[in-house]
């Protein structure tokens, strides 16, 4: 598995897209920091970008990579190799290279700006951690979609739909249900609703760490009571981990049964 991982990783590292992705984050980080001059504001803006863009890039890139390397995968399948190690290797290769672009691209400008001296370092590391989690989650979901669909167009369609659902439509449904049930106590419902969507969960985790959390008022207080404790943090990180592990299991399961 490690060999395949290494191969996928180096293959991607050599490809243009990783550089573009890396350069994009580098530029974003530099522009934000030197136009804004305020670390915690920059973290908020970055959060807005990350919770939308990272899932999108993760899904599209995952699907694209799978379809592109299909011939190579078939070649590998002819060798005496375990199927799970082939697909997991590829998956980890994509996810790790994307995460590296993200972490280096954003980390470098912040380090040059003097992140280690600043108190925003924890907010920033949380941002990078959730960003990495989101990359792993959405790449895994993308591999699932690609494995289940031979048809490229269909696969891309589902991938975009998945992103659209989790990033936008889910919030719409969530909002509607909150308004519909406004006569009932909604603390638990909103807490559960946030936990179920990795994008919402990451957004809430970061928001609560920032000053802006005072805006959240009473609901925010309930959330803070939950997420502010170690228990809450462990649960939410655990939830993100579950979002990684379940799709990965399905990749392994699906790959074993699939006819090529």
């Amino acid at each position, binding site marked *: 598995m490690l060999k395949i991982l290494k191969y996928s990783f180096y293959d991607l590292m050599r490809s243009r897209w990783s550089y573009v992705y890396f350069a994009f984050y580098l530029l974003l980080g530099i522009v934000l920091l030197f136009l804004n001059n305020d670390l915690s504001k920059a973290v*908020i803006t970055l*959060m*807005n970008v990350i*919770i*939308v863009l990272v899932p999108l890039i993760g899904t599209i890139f995952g699907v694209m990579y799978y379809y592109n390397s299909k011939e190579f995968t078939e070649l590998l399948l002819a060798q005496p190799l375990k199927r799970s190690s082939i697909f997991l290797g590829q998956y980890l290769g994509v996810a790790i290279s994307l995460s590296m672009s993200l972490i280096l691209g954003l980390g470098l400008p912040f380090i040059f700006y003097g992140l280690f001296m600043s108190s925003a370092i924890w907010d920033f590391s949380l941002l990078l951690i959730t960003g990495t989690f989101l990359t792993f989650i959405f790449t895994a979901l993308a591999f699932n979609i690609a494995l289940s669909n031979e048809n490229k167009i269909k696969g891309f369609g589902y991938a975009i739909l998945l992103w659209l659902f989790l*990033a*936008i*439509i889910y*919030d*719409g449904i*969530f*909002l509607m249900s*909150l*308004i519909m049930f*406004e006569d009932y106590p*909604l*603390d638990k419902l*909103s807490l559960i609703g*946030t936990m179920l969507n990795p994008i*919402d969960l990451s*957004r*809430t985790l970061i*928001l609560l760490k920032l*000053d*802006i959390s*005072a*805006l*959240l*008022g*009473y*609901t*925010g*207080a309930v*959330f803070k009571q939950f997420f502010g404790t170690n228990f809450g943090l462990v649960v939410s990180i655990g939830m993100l981990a579950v979002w990684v592990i379940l799709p990965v299991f399905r990749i392994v399961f699906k790959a074993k049964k699939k006819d090529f």
Partner: protein
Amino acid sequence: MKIKIVTFFAMIIVGFLQAQTVEVCKDCTYKTFSDGVKAAKDFDTLIIKKGTYKEYNILVDKPLTIIGENYPVIDGELKGEIITIVSDSVTVDGLFIINVGTSYTEDYAAIRVKRSMYFVIQNVVLEKLFFGIYIEKSQYGKIFHNKIIGDAVEEYNSGNGIQLWYSKNVEIEHNFVQHVRDGIYLEFSDDCLIKNNVSTLNIRYGLHFMFSNDDVYQDNTFENNGAGVAVMFSKRIKMYNNIFKENWGTASYGLLLKEINDAEITGNSFEDNTIGINIEGSNRINYKHNDFINNGWAIKVKGACYTNSFTENNFLYNSFDIAYNSNVNDNVFDKNYWSNYTGYDLNKNGIGDIPYRPVKLFSYIVNRTPETIILLRSLFIDIIDFSEKVSPVFTPDNLLDNNPKMKRIEW
């Protein structure tokens, strides 16, 4: 009648002519503050020399000028009230008063003025207090250049820095109040002037009005209080050039207006507050030339606010500019600068060509169902805000600024 007045003045003049100085110190004839007061005659000057005086319940019942030399310490040893003034024309200057007693049945104060006129309290330093300066049914006084530093932790067992109760025509200037319940509190007190004070880190409000009319407060700074200023059930209050800053917390605001009519709010700056101004049941108020910078909500309008006008204010980088909970609007927004304005100005007259709608759909939804605030900064919210901006359905139709400025307004 004339003769009466003449004799009155004659008495005062005679009194002044006879005024003498009484000194209080460890080695003087009079060793305690109370002895000094007893020994002094009307209109005498009482000089308290440097030292520590462990006394409380000092009753000043004659017109005296009490001057502390090099800040003598009056230590109440937490036993009760320290100085009570029940005579007209008393001046207290330059004392350092500590350890006022705490009581749940009586409001012990460091200095209390009761039913008196023409009092002056200046250059006094108060520490470890319950109530600081308590003015009761008194008039024409001056509270000037005092420093009050409390150690209040909870609302129920702490007192206010400067409290006025049924008092009129009092000037409160250049005071510095910190760590008490309410920095300055006015109840049933009319025609007072509150100027150049700094009120910070108080548990409840920096400044608090209740049932007080025709007061003016200007050039004050309210920073980091539970809430900056609360103006309640009062009429014709003028608020000029104050700074409301960093009143930040889940239930904090810079300025709370509740049942206020005919007020003027001009030239103030609201910066980094969770809610800049929280308005409830307030009518005919003019908001002009105020700066709202970096607040969560710049202005939150709850019910029953009519004929208010908001003109030539700057709204800069607030998460929400205006929150409004009904779709009827009788308030006027005109010629403000909104940093969130995205319109254009083709004829270059400095006024945007399309009106600005300060109420976002999301702020309307949040007002209805507060729990939805957890969707703050979600992409979906940005999308619905945009579509509402293009064609308003939920937010008040006529709530718009027809002449939004293109540049920040300077005055």
